């Protein structure tokens, strides 16, 4: 049976997040926790692939207990099973430690049902490194395929997948052996509104919850802050740009002033100026 696992993370909604102007720190209480928007596309893609090829979709998250909410959101999207690993020992993990910990959980999930495909989001909206997916793939010795914006074929019997990888000016078509890991772009699909049956199931759903002691052969020195080679040494608010001047007078007068400033750069406005048109 085809088994697809989507890795998902709960994140603060950075659209709503506020900075405390006095301390230059983030006011976390101002930001509601949501399912990382890119991960919603990862789960949706897994669900769509299940509709095409059959099988089951599991989701996995590492996070504090409230991350159960993000798993429920994935059940709403249509995932079958949810796994959460949560432990104080995981706190402060960078991408290397995160991918290590997730890999240990994926190995355990794979023992229950072997995994054919892992789907990650392109990145999260809080750390936004995009490094966790490739990290997991390397640790599980699967080919990592980042920037995927289409899955054209998944052939479990013959053990391959064909996907499109987005490039700066187009895309490439890649054939990879299975199992593999893909990180998906948001344009890969649209996440529809949840169906009522999924919402009802999600409300009651209890995920599998594991702590460090549930994971096998774990090297505790590779977890959390201890297992993280990178450290955040300081955090500050990006520099506020210095405001310029608002032009004054009637619109015509403002435009005259603007033109005077711009024409100082007259060399830019030749017939061939600029870098092309849309």
């Amino acid at each position: 049976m085809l088994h697809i696992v989507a890795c998902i993370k709960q994140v603060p909604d950075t659209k709503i997040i506020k900075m405390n102007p006095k301390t230059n720190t983030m006011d976390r209480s101002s930001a509601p926790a949501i399912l990382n928007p890119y991960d919603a596309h990862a789960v949706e893609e897994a669900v769509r692939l299940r509709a095409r090829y059959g099988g089951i979709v599991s989701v996995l998250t590492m996070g504090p207990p409230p991350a159960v909410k993000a798993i429920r959101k994935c059940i709403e999207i249509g995932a079958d099973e949810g796994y959460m690993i949560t432990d104080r020992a995981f706190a402060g993990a960078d991408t290397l430690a995160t991918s290590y910990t997730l890999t240990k959980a994926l190995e355990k999930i794979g023992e229950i049902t072997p995994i054919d495909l892992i789907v990650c989001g392109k990145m999260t909206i809080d750390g936004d490194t995009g490094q966790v997916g490739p990290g997991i793939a390397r640790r599980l010795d699967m080919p990592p395929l980042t920037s995927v914006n289409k899955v054209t074929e998944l052939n479990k019997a013959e053990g391959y997948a064909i996907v499109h990888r987005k490039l700066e000016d187009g895309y490439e078509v890649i054939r990879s052996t299975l199992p593999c890991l893909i990180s998906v772009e948001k344009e890969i699909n649209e996440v529809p509104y949840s169906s009522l049956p999924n919402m009802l199931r999600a409300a009651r759903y209890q995920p599998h919850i594991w702590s460090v002691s549930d994971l096998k052969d774990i090297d505790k020195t590779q977890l959390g802050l201890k297992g993280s080679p990178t450290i955040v040494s300081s955090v500050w608010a990006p520099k506020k740009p210095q405001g310029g001047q608002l032009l004054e007078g009637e619109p015509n007068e403002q435009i005259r002033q603007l033109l005077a400033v711009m024409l100082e750069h007259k060399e830019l406005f030749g017939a061939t100026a600029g870098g092309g048109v849309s």
Partner: protein
Amino acid sequence: MNMEDYRGVWVFIEEKDGIVAPVSLELLGAGKWLAEKRKTELAGVLIGENVQELAQTVVEYGADKVYVYDDPIYRFYRTESYMKAMLACVEKYKPEILLYGATSTGKDLASAVATDLPTGLTADTTQLDVEEDTGLLLASRPAFGGNIMATILCKKYRPQMATVRPKVMKALSRNNGATGEFIHESIPIKEEDIRTKVLEIVQTTTQRIRIDEADIIVAGGKGLGGPLGFQVIHQLANTLGAVVGASRDVVEAGWIGHHHQVGQTGATVTPKIYFAIGISGAIQHIVGMQNSGLIIAINKDPAAAIFQAAHYGIVGDALTIVPMITEAFKIALGREGEVDARKV
């Protein structure tokens, strides 16, 4: 791990169709500065098929040395083949700092290499510095959607690795005829060992819109009200010979393609002139355009944050003001009555 064994600053040289990616040249500029501070050498790692000639380019942009992996197996970028070359090179020559462009290729490669080494990897860096005596790399990057900046250190592992955003570092001017050392490397690697195959490469944009290379950008936002309102942006851009930019909300609304997006999750741009029209000035937009030469904002809300980032601002309705600028410009440039022939 013996830290003393690791010396030198390296840049992964990204190449496509026989051209070195601009970001790699920028990183050579930044790398040179770091290497000088550390009194050490700067090297490029060049991987591809038929890339020998580019090694000279890399030297002319500041590298003392180039490690070259030239083999048909590297014809297309693939994580597994490039990663194996990079791992072998790092293990053999042990750099203390290794930089990659934060492009889809650079990020993909760097994440894989970091895991296998293993070492720390700072993502999407926009500022770099190094402690002269300790060699500690101070890599700073935006996080939380650009709401904060963070400085990331990697104290206990080498090399210290970072991906660096295009357009935030400056390339040195080319030193034609500069000489350097070319070191040809190869590793035993067979096509059968690589589990991914590139079946096809499809170019979707016939004329590449290089928003990150434009001298003038006319960018529009949600304030234009709709795709029809956005036309005034195209008209001004055509008149100025500019490239059209956009805020993310406009891209998400489908008024224009995503490669026009400027900002944190779009392109970082540094044109000589940047127009921000009907754009509120969210931090995620500002981080992508704040280094433009001359920033002109037009917004009907005098309190809009964009005016803080702009050199000159006009408060008013874009739908009336922008066509006026377009007309005034045509007159100033002696192009009145000109039809928009260049519009496609």
